[in-house]
């Protein structure tokens, strides 16, 4: 089995088998990233496909000072944002007057990630993107505001909304879990 560096080198030379091996190694993780930013599996697969093409074309310029997985995730996120951009222009994000009601911190224990994925996918478009970027990718609100050409306040209010919605969903799921004893997956 080739090491990551060897794989990158082979991919740079256009070796198709190595490209396939790289794809096989990361496609499942990247699929989860794409699913978080999309509403359906076909949409996620479109992003994944486009993202991987960018990865193979961009490998020439990849400096190995960052982890390959992190770099690929960033490409997937940017590709997903490009997909969303048109929709976000059509349905621009605005500040929402959502008061963050202090709730007991919802516990994710016992909830399978696919259930969390469904919850994220069910969020309103803007909330979904901002929640992913802030909570999972770890971008700050300033960065998000810059990347999405929105105000920092909008990013914060959308995130608060997303968090409220998710917490409500998680509480509901936790109650179900406590009642029936097992996750639904």
């Amino acid at each position, binding site marked *: 089995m080739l090491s990551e560096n060897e794989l990158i080198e082979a991919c740079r030379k*256009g070796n*198709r088998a190595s*490209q*396939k091996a790289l*794809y096989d190694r990361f*496609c*499942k*993780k990247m*699929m*989860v990233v794409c*699913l*978080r930013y999309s509403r359906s*599996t*076909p949409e*996620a*697969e*479109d992003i*994944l*496909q486009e993202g*991987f*093409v960018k990865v*193979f*074309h961009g490998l020439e310029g990849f400096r190995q000072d960052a982890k390959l997985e992190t770099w690929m995730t960033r490409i997937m996120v940017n590709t997903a944002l490009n997909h969303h951009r048109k929709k976000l222009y059509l349905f621009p994000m605005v500040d929402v007057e959502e008061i963050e009601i202090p709730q007991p*911190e*919802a*516990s*994710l224990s016992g*909830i399978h*990630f*696919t259930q*969390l*994925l469904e919850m994220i996918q069910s969020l309103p478009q803007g909330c979904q993107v901002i929640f992913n970027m*802030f*909570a*999972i990718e*770890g971008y*700050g*609100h300033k960065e998000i505001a810059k990347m999405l050409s929105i105000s920092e306040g909008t990013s914060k209010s959308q995130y608060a909304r997303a*968090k409220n919605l998710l*917490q409500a969903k998680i509480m509901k799921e936790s109650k179900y879990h406590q009642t029936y004893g097992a996750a639904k997956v």
Partner: protein
Amino acid sequence: MEQQKFEESFKGAFRNAEIEPSDTVWTNVELDLDQHSGKKGLLILIQLLAAASIVFAMGIGGVYYLDSAQVQNSQSAKLNNATLDNLDEINSQESIISNSTSAALDQSNSSVKPSKMLKDGTESLQIVAVINEEMSRSRNAKVEFSQLQRPLPKLSKVFQPTLIISPPTEPDAGMLLLARLQDEERKYQQEEIIVNEKIWTSVGIGAGTFHPNTNSSSLSLQGFDNIASSSNPSAGTSYSAAVSVAGKISRRIVLQGGVTYLSYNAEYTSSAALGTKASLNEFIVSNEQLVATSPYKVSSNLKYMSIPIQAGFILFEKNLALQINTGISTDIFLQNTLTPENSDLDKVTQSSGADSPYRTINFSGLVSSELSYKVGDHYRIAINPGLRYALNSIYRSEDSAQIEPVSVDLALRFRYIF
């Protein structure tokens, strides 16, 4: 630190999460990569070879079909056999093409995004081979293979390339055969419904309005002109239930008959009653005790058994069909029930017979249309608006009043095609 426990736990939940994407993603990535790596020329060659192999397979299918068409009498059976037998052959081509060259085919069609082609399994095969204009004019050889979708269902799930075959310098025998095959297929498709729908039976129910259509301003009760009278019956309702059998005597002419049960309801005002006995039934047979009374309403319910014979003309017949019918019916009077509103009077039922004021046998003219839709190989559902006009008075000729009812109704029918 902006991130808190909630965010951290979410991040943690997705840290090692994996979901397998479908195989088509890699295929499409590969296609995209190929597109950028200068393999276009080779791909076009492969594409043309693939197209040629499909055309060849179809040509073989066409030859087989035409040969078998000459031997057998039933055209439909021949077509089905030919296409089915060739499916295996074509399907083997399909697997070769899909495995080795579908990627290449899609690749060269740069206007179409590969993901759209490969991901949507429901899209059907549409291979359009266009021969140059000159050849089209001289040989009528513009061939659209999309017409052949039905015989090639399995191919439809593979890909959807659009191929333009460059104009050949000589007429291609394979193309001509395919053109003929296409014509035969078109004829077959047009005739299929007609061939299949020769005899059918239908059941239906209908409702509409009933107009007594009387010729006098007031009606004397039958046989009691000088004693008491009643007003003209008002328009009422009609109900029908029918069973019919129909068959085609030519491509567009249909002959149909059956049995229809008819029920007409109407109201009129009467001022006649039978003295103290208060029985409407008795005044029908004797006027000795008939007296005039204050007006009261009477509901009349006429029942007939009708035997219609109609000729129909089919205007068009595809899945949706329209037919116009005209004919006559023999209506056998069953009974009339008179129900007075006045509770002092009894309900009266008048049957047919020599003493009955109603004719036993009546004749009506019929005009109707039938709009039907095919809902299965053997079924059609139809709406059937129709007009029924009595050709004679329903009263006996010696009676003073003449009533020639007209009814307009809308029936819903279910047709079973044998």
